[in-house]
């Protein structure tokens, strides 16, 4: 479906384009795992995301920093296919994601600060429910494995409302990774976690950097975010005002740099 009908474009077929540019359509193309082109999100008169472009290959880990109200959650929502962009498109492995199709959603895992958990169901029931939705075969095994990984194996029978915030966050993480997604989105995963839970999260996230997955994380935690990242971006006022490979960043001076960038654009 067309993201927006535009009358000033003439339709040119893909084969015509390839013929014109001399691209060999039979050669395997290496398209980025996650791509965003001109993403814009407007809520009436308010523009939350004002044109964001993004290109990540498999194995990359992008951390997005930014002040509140910069539109980070809206951006993540569009990348994860939860929100329809006002303009622009998102592609996974070269194919534009369509909100009306759903098969591609099995490749995506989302950890939202809202939890996505049912308070009155137990940890195990929550995971089982999502396991069924994702059509997983070995649900019981996966549940046991993931609960173990996030340190909640002994709380499997506890209702979510009986779990502390940190435990819920960990359960949400288990939920996000249960179906072994290729692309993972994390929205403020470190918020409200005590040091030991944060350490556990760090461990799980490190495991995600196995080269098969692509991760995008939004966080306020400069240290952790920087440590994990292969690429860093700072979002202010709905767009990326600063972007760099993590290897080129001076960790020690980053905090100062972050504040300078944010101040300059406010």
């Amino acid at each position, binding site marked *: *479906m*067309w*993201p*927006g*009908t535009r009358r000033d474009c003439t339709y040119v077929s893909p084969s015509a384009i390839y013929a014109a540019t001399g691209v060999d359509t039979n050669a395997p193309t290496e398209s980025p795992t996650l791509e965003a082109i001109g993403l814009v999100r407007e*809520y*009436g*008169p308010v*523009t939350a995301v004002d044109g964001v472009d993004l290109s990540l290959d498999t194995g990359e880990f992008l951390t997005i920093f930014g002040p509140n109200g910069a539109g980070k959650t809206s951006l993540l929502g569009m990348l994860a296919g939860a929100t329809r962009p*006002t303009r622009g498109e998102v592609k996974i492995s070269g194919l534009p994601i369509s909100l009306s199709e759903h098969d591609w959603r099995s490749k995506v895992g989302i950890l939202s600060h809202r939890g996505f958990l049912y308070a009155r169901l137990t940890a195990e029931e929550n995971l089982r429910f999502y396991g069924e939705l994702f059509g997983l075969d070995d649900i019981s095994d996966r549940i046991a494995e993931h609960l173990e990984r996030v340190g909640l194996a002994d709380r499997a029978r506890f209702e979510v409302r009986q779990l502390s915030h940190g435990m819920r966050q960990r359960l949400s993480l288990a939920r996000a990774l249960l179906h072994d997604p290729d692309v993972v989105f994390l929205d403020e995963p470190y918020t409200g976690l005590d040091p030991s839970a944060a350490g556990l999260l760090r461990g799980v996230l490190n495991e995600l950097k196995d080269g098969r997955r692509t991760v995008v994380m939004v966080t306020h935690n400069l240290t952790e975010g920087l440590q994990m990242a292969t690429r860093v971006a700072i979002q202010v006022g709905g767009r990326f005002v600063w972007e760099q490979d993590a290897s080129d960043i001076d960790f020690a001076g980053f905090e100062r740099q972050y504040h300078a960038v944010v101040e300059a654009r406010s």
Partner: protein
Amino acid sequence: MSTAGVRRGATGFTLLGLAGLIGLFWMSFFWVSTEVNQGIVQRIFYVHVPAAWTSFLAIGIAALCSGVYLWLRDEKLDRAAVCAAEGGLVFATIVLLTGPLWGKIAWGTYWNWEPRLTLTLLLWFVFVGYFMVRNATEDPEKGKRFAAVVAIVGAIDIPFIHLSVIWFRSLHPEPVVAKPDGPTLPGDMLATLMVGLGVFTLLFLGLFLFRYALEGLRSEADLRARRPAS
């Protein structure tokens, strides 16, 4: 289609409609014969029925545009839907005002659940629901989608409501009054009614196009306000 073009079309339709309206009034007051049982008041019929017809045309247009809007997400379709809905609301209100008036004078009661009037009342509520839902969301795009759903479901339900109301009425038949809209409508009454239908449709289209042009200007103004002058 440019806004100026739309406005020209709108002006054309409206002027034609207004001219037709004058003609209609002349026909209904001076030319057509008086209905034998109800007397002069029956002439409201030539306004009442065309207005009802137009309001149903309106929900049809609104539902159709809404359906295609949900599919293609072209703003113009949503604009068309809201303009049709507004026109529909106006004409439905006319029906609901003229109906009881006619009823009271002709046979003594303001309201007697006459099928056409009842159906229009429910249609009126559908239009009201359309606008309530459209304006009750924080995100205007959501409001447009919700309103589209209301229009579509409303339009689908109208035939069901129509059948149910007629069946319900058939259980309690009206006192025997000559029905001016029965199958044997005398020639001159039929002609006046047809003129009425045509005129009201023209007026509706004129109103619709004016409103559409206005919405076009409004959205353009929004767009300009969003982009700072460079």
